[in-house]
């Protein structure tokens, strides 16, 4: 299959300049029908830029593209769609004001007598989504569904529209294991239909599971193509980073909890999360595990006052506090780095520098502005500490690559030097190198006495740094794991085992 004579899609010498950077430097790539081709590289390596050049979302400065041997030059996404290249971009891909079905069919709606047929559209949508494991009402507005559902809808849309090439830019970032498997079974089906599929991700396990070959970018250059059957993860990582990643054996270092800092007592919000109680001590990381929709994000938002609870209360060092909005939380030294950076996090038009100091300045009050040199010092410190790749601190943050935006957001909350830090999916979209840096950062913060609550769908990561892990299920705490019980297997077991008992019994 990958040895077919003519590639489905071939790009030669693709080059793209941005002010201050060469995002792509003479990149070649070959894609064959019936293969899944991984596109790998660090944050800011140029992966998203490459696919945008291929689909006409960006105008490339140099380079040629052939589709099934014919030269093509899509000048717009509409054109590449009509050529049979379907794409899920890394950013938001769908329109919040339309229904699920309208989003799914925008541009190729079913018609009756020349008019759109909504009924037909909804029925077709239901059928299509069922293939992707979604059982939802397509006539509902897109915004009534979670980010994960939207992601699946976006993938379904791209897959339905792609006759020849399907491009997925970090499609699995907001999915959990089961959904990833579901997506993979769909990808395999499409691959067997002869599609050429580009798959971008930072999860190397997934790369090895689904892909046949991988092309690696580093600093905008193609540094090699590998047949995945012939290499190891370590080879790929070395190729990506251009150096060996120090072997980080995931030794558990849970740390020892200090004095009690924050405690929540039967906190709840009807329809969102069942009453839960939680004590968080200094120098401890409490991990929140669970499937999507199990209540991880809701727990985090409730503790930060981003969502107002309708029952229960929160105490800091034994004193009851008012927690009706994030400002209250911030004044008590809380910080929350949210999951959905696009809508709740970054301010796209503001510079990277302003985005980083935003929360600190807000806590100080706007009447007491930080000095220019102080601002620069803080921003530069975090850019270096988190290895944020940028052309300048003045560039609008939306121009950063996805992973670097995530890091900048993390920097914003670290800059406030909180006592209690809530992280919701801190490593989503972050590359392998930075991933292990962030894990050690979390461990450092913990050892310096900070109390942390980290919600994550990556269990290995939770196992590495958590003092305790709380497993959520159906918007309820299902059980709590401590000490040596914190293993990936136990978490998976707790999530999937229907018969598991209530927290008090599960504790050993």
């Amino acid at each position, binding site marked *: 299959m990958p040895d077919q004579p003519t590639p489905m899609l071939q790009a030669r010498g693709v080059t793209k300049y941005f002010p201050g950077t060469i995002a792509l430097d003479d990149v070649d790539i070959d894609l064959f029908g019936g293969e899944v081709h991984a596109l790998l590289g660090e944050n800011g390596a140029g992966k998203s830029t490459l696919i945008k050049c291929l689909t006409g*979302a960006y105008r490339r400065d140099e380079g040629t593209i052939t589709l099934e041997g014919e030269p093509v030059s899509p000048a717009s996404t*509409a054109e590449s769609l009509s050529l049979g290249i379907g794409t899920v971009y890394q950013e938001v891909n769908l329109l*919040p004001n339309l229904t699920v079905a*309208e989003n799914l069919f925008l541009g190729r709606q079913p018609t009756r007598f020349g008019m759109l047929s909504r009924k037909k559209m909804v029925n077709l949508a239901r059928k299509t989504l069922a293939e992707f*494991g*979604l*059982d939802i009402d397509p006539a509902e507005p897109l*915004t009534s569904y*979670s980010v994960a559902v939207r992601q699946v809808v976006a993938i379904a849309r791209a897959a339905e*529209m792609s006759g020849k090439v399907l491009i997925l830019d970090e499609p699995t970032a907001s999915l959990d294991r089961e959904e990833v498997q579901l997506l993979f079974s769909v990808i395999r089906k499409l691959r067997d239909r002869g599609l050429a599929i580009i798959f971008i991700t930072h999860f190397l396990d997934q790369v090895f599971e689904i892909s046949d070959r991988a092309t690696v970018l580093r600093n905008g250059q193609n540094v090699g193509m590998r047949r995945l059957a012939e290499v190891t993860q370590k080879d790929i990582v070395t190729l990506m980073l251009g150096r060996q990643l120090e072997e980080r054996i995931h030794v558990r270092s849970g740390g020892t909890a200090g004095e009690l800092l924050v405690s929540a007592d039967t906190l709840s919000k009807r329809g969102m999360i069942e009453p839960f109680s939680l004590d968080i001590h200094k120098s401890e990381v409490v991990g929140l595990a669970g499937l999507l929709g199990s209540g991880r994000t809701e727990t985090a938002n409730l503790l930060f006052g981003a969502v107002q609870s309708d029952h229960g209360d929160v105490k800091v060092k034994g004193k009851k506090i008012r927690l009706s909005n994030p400002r209250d939380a911030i004044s008590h030294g809380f910080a929350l780095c949210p999951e959905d950076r696009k809508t709740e996090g970054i301010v796209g038009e503001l510079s990277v520098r302003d985005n980083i100091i935003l929360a600190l300045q807000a806590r100080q009050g706007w009447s007491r502005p930080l000095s220019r040199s102080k601002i620069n010092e803080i921003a530069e410190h975090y850019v270096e500490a988190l290895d944020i790749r940028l052309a300048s601190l003045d560039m609008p943050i939306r121009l950063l690559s996805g992973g670097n935006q995530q890091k900048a957001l993390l920097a914003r909350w670290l800059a406030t030097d909180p006592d209690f830090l809530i992280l919701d999916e801190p490593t989503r979209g972050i590359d392998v190198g930075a991933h292990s840096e962030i894990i050690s950062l979390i461990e450092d913060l913990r050892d310096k006495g900070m109390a942390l609550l980290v919600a994550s769908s990556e269990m290995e990561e939770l196992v590495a740094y958590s003092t305790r892990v709380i497993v959520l299920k159906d918007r309820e705490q299902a059980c709590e794991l401590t000490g040596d019980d914190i293993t990936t297997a136990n978490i998976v077991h707790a999530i999937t085992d229907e018969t598991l008992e209530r927290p008090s019994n599960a504790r050993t």
Partner: protein
Amino acid sequence: MIRTTHLPLLVTLGTFVIAFALCAWQYPAIFSTRVAANLLTDNAFLGIAAVGMTFVILSGGIDLSIGSVIAFTGVFLAVILRDTNIHPLAAFALVLVITTAFGAAMGAVIHYLEMPAFIVTLAGMFLARGAAYVLSTDSVPITHEFFSTLQDIYWKAPSGGRFRLIGGVMLLTFIIGAIVAHRTKFGQNVFAMGGGAATARLMGVPLASTTIRIYAISGGLAGLSGIVFSLYTSAGYSLATVGVELDAIAAVVIGGTLLTGGYGFVAGTFFGILIMGLIQTYIVFDGSLSSWWTKIVIGGLLFAFILLQKGLTWATRTGKRQSTGLATPS
């Protein structure tokens, strides 16, 4: 099933029903076919223009030129019928071509030069008004007998109301407008643009042709509105219909369309027009109130509707539980 996106439309409908009931309770005479017929006739030109404005606002834009385009159309027709022997129908066709092309040109400038619609259509407003002045500064009467023929077409309701041609033209415009907005691919593209132009572009919506077509529709309907207005007044005057664009915007917003685009209904605009017409009728019936009260009430209504929309956006964003709906793994 009622969806939150339908709520503004329902509120508009409710407002109209309540307002009408109140008026009819105080002045039972309002509840007559005569008043209904006048409501349609008097607001025909505004309604037609508001349909175009609905498309523009749905897409997230604005068109400030329509009042001037209506005046230009009137003057153009009056002058051309006075000075040449062209048949009015040919003149209608000609002026529609001109106004549509004018709108399309504004759309092209907005898209290709990446200029804000506000600025471009503001320039369009001055241009069209200026062109009307150049043609004639005085009010030019239209005396062509074809005009009288058209003006004499009406359907007399049993109880005396006369439903005139121009009211029918407005109704037809609304029906076609609703179909185009809600039942065609183009209409979906308009909504998509209003939801977010950058995302719409990545989803393959042809922004250039959609933008151009939207402003062409708005320009063309302003032309049609101008024709209707000249039938209504039998004259063309370059100082007429100043500020009609703002009335049209008000009708669209009172009709439940979100001023920032993406949400709304053409049918809502129809009720927006009726509500505004009803207020005027009430003031006429009252006799003692200054007609400026119309403006004050419309201002209040506008404010209320904008608040309502803010509230709704806020409610859908925070209040709603997001279901996952993913098939549970076995």
